[in-house]
């Protein structure tokens, strides 16, 4: 009888450290409760509910999901001849348990049977689920589809399907990628057309669709034949029928429990979500932003699992007359894994917190719930600010957490040595599962393209300015804060240097600048944690002191102006190898 929430010191620390009452206030403000009989009395009551919800998730994760995970990984799901998919019986059991626990409408309004939890609590839950089974988080974490329906679809669709999500009767898929439209979604070709009565139909092929065998499909399709770019795309709601078939179930390196489908649409009836032509530019962008925070949470979970395995192994495995954690090289690996993980968690949870501000502000704006013109005006201004901050933090989190997960899972194998390479331990599964996180929902390289805009356009500077105003009494924290201020200065200077050069050079420097900015942001977040917790103070010190030299290195490289990777590509990359 374990519990992945109650046994996790850092999640619990952050649960107490972050101002959840403020988030509860936002979340409950003008909430759509219908006639639900489980509405919290006040903010304290809401926060108490959040804790209880995470305790239940932690219990199901430890008692059900985790023991099922290795079996699901070995056996996977099954594609049937009629183009349907049968989920592994244990995946079905996982879904049944979480449905019994009322967890399938995590953030939806109570009116539909949801729990109305803030995004931050959902992020924590996603992390806990992913620690137990990274692949199952894809099914649990797809609740963003219901959220998107809630945010943009009409009342008829919402009243019909959202209660079914909450009751665990349906799961969904976001159906975006095509064989020739991966990172470049503007080139989506799947055709949407209307008959004389105005009914929409979908025709074409989609690929790499997570849970494409689900009952509810949110499909990005070309509704405007004559508009070739993203403005020709709309978002459609469709339900599973025999007019959409799973043609192929991908065989993947990891996340075997998550069915990745190739879908063939043959005149599948569909309904338009929101307005035409806003499919990619508004709705999918919103959907993807939420999903990216989800992948950050998934990354944290699998890294936590890998770290724990390595921590225990380093303590119990004896070589040279003692536990291997006494060997300096191992001690440093284990230390760095943990700090890397806590740094990533600080960033992801902060991002979720900012998402909650943005989402709730938009909810009140979009639903016309403002009390008067003044409030509406204020909210519109706030919306721009939150969007700007979030437009930087979300890709940063997705990028940083997923890269962290790969590093930590890789290091875990190194700590376990030969045993880590064998199937006897879960370490190899953690690495295989973690590997996808830097790729789907936008590769690391695309996250950097999104994040660098914020770093280079002032969002970074103004976001960090608030942290710089914090006054720490502790001399260590004060001096570390000063070092972060200096590092920020260096970053801004380097950005000026880059701006004097080509657009290609900004792209080339993106990773180094974003890496440097992330160190400064996480450094400030850890200082805030260190102000209330002595161990966290040491974590902040270790993180900042070991990362500032890396920041300097990155800035030095950018300031070198070296373009050889582009200018001398043919020479340096060498000739294209001939096949065969």
């Amino acid at each position, binding site marked *: 009888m374990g519990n992945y929430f109650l046994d996790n010191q850092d999640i619990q620390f952050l649960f107490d450290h972050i101002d959840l009452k403020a988030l509860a206030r936002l979340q409950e403000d003008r909430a759509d409760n219908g006639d*639900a*009989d*489980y509405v*919290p009395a006040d903010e304290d009551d809401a926060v*108490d*509910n959040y804790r*209880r*919800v995470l305790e*239940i998730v932690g*219990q*199901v994760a430890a*008692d*059900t999901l985790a023991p099922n995970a290795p079996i699901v990984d070995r056996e996977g799901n099954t594609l049937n001849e009629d183009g349907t998919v049968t989920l592994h019986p244990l995946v079905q059991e996982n879904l049944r*348990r979480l449905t*019994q*626990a*009322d*967890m399938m409408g995590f953030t939806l309004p109570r009116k539909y*049977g949801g*729990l109305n939890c803030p995004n931050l609590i959902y992020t924590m839950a996603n992390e806990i689920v992913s620690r137990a089974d990274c692949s199952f988080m894809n099914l649990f974490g797809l609740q963003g589809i219901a959220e998107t329906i809630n945010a943009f679809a009409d009342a008829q669709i919402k009243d019909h399907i959202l209660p079914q999500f909450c009751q665990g009767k349906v799961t969904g898929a976001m159906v975006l990628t095509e064989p020739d439209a991966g990172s470049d979604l503007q080139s989506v070709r799947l055709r949407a057309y209307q008959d004389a009565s105005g009914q929409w139909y979908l025709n074409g092929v989609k690929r790499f669709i997570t849970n494409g065998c689900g009952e509810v499909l949110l499909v990005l399709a070309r509704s405007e034949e004559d508009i070739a770019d993203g403005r020709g795309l709309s978002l459609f709601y469709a339900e599973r029928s025999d007019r959409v078939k799973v043609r192929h179930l991908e065989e993947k390196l990891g996340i075997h429990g998550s069915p990745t489908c190739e879908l063939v649409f043959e005149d599948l009836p569909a309904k338009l979500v929101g307005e035409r032509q806003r499919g990619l530019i508004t709705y999918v962008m919103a959907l993807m932003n939420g999903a990216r925070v989800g992948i950050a949470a998934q990354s944290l979970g699998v890294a936590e699992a890998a770290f724990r395995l390595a921590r225990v192994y380093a303590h119990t495995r004896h070589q040279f007359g003692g536990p291997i954690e006494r060997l300096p090289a191992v001690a440093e690996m284990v230390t760095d894994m943990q700090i890397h993980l806590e740094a990533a968690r600080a960033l992801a949870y902060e991002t979720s917190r900012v998402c909650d501000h943005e989402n709730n502000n938009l909810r009140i704006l979009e639903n016309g719930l403002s009390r008067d013109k003044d409030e509406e005006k204020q909210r519109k201004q706030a919306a721009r600010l939150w969007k700007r901050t979030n437009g930087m933090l979300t890709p940063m989190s997705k990028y940083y957490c997923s890269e962290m997960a790969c590093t930590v899972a890789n290091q875990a194998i190194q700590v376990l040595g030969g045993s880590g390479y064998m199937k006897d331990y879960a370490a190899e599964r953690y690495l295989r599962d973690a590997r996808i996180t830097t790729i789907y929902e936008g590769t690391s390289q695309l996250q950097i393209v999104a994040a660098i805009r914020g770093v280079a356009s002032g969002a970074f500077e103004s976001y960090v300015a608030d942290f710089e105003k914090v006054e720490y009494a502790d001399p260590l924290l004060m001096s570390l804060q000063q070092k972060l201020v200096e590092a920020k200065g260096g970053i801004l200077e380097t950005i000026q240097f880059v701006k004097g050069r080509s657009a290609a050079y900004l792209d080339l420097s993106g990773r180094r600048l974003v890496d440097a900015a992330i160190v400064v942001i996480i450094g400030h977040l850890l200082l805030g944690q260190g102000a209330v917790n002595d161990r966290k103070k040491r974590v902040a010190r270790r993180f900042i002191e070991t990362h500032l030299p890396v920041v300097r290195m990155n800035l030095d490289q950018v300031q070198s102006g070296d373009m050889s990777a582009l200018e001398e590509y043919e020479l340096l990359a060498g000739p294209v190898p001939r096949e065969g």
Partner: protein
Amino acid sequence: MPYHSIVCVKQVPDTANITTEAMKEDGTVNRAALPAIFNPEDLNALETALEVRDQFGGTVTAVSMGPPKAADVLRDCLYRGADRAILVTDRRAAASDTLATSYILSQAIRTIGRFDFVFCGRQAIDGDTAQVGPQTAEKLGLPQVTYLEELVGLDGDLVRVRRNVGNGWELIEARLPVLITVLGTANKPRPPAARRVMRFKRARTEAEVAAMVQEAMPSASPAERDAEVRRRTEQLKQAGLLIEQWNLDDIHADLDRCGLAGSPTKVFRVQSIVLTKQGYTDIPPTEDGVRRLIHELVVDHTLG
């Protein structure tokens, strides 16, 4: 056809997580040092009842006999889906052995009235007697099926049960109403349901309400406090949040059969066994070595 089930549940000290403070000097259980938990096999009994209700409809009523604190396990029953929760609590029931306990439970079950099933966990981890279920069945004049591992079928008033008898299985048919005791291997208890937790975390017994009033109004007169308790209790009842609380009079119990008076069990001797290592014996891994080991274990009654 819908079935109405009653589930007997008990709050027990968590004997799975024993520390050195688990026993008092006199050899009795130090309940204060052990966390109080839901008796594990009672959760399996509750799950069995909930599965019957999920499939056929009906109701599930949880009943517990114990001190006021046992309301915790009844709240847990509500979280997991029970429709109704009843706490039988009375100072006069203290020190009841299995005979008195089963009498009190049987009176409580009679008071509830209509039912098709009584489900109990096989045994509680604090006493390990496995007597209360069967004794309750006897007092109610019910057929009993112990050690359920699977409820195989249910048709009209006929239930078919696979029971695990240790060295094999028996398939038993019984007519309803029936009392069934459930094994830990029968099922995996469902988790608490979040929406029900958010709602029923406020569910209280009258005794808990009284304690809250005592704390909130320390200087009020007893009459004022009583009035406040009545007011709050009524409020909870209206909201469906009252855990019913019955005393021995409410269930028309014969007081001579309750508590110490109704408990013929006499503790003959309490042994305080302290396990310490006193040296060790090397057993060679040979036929003869194993033979000697077995012999030694038989002689000191570890085996056989």
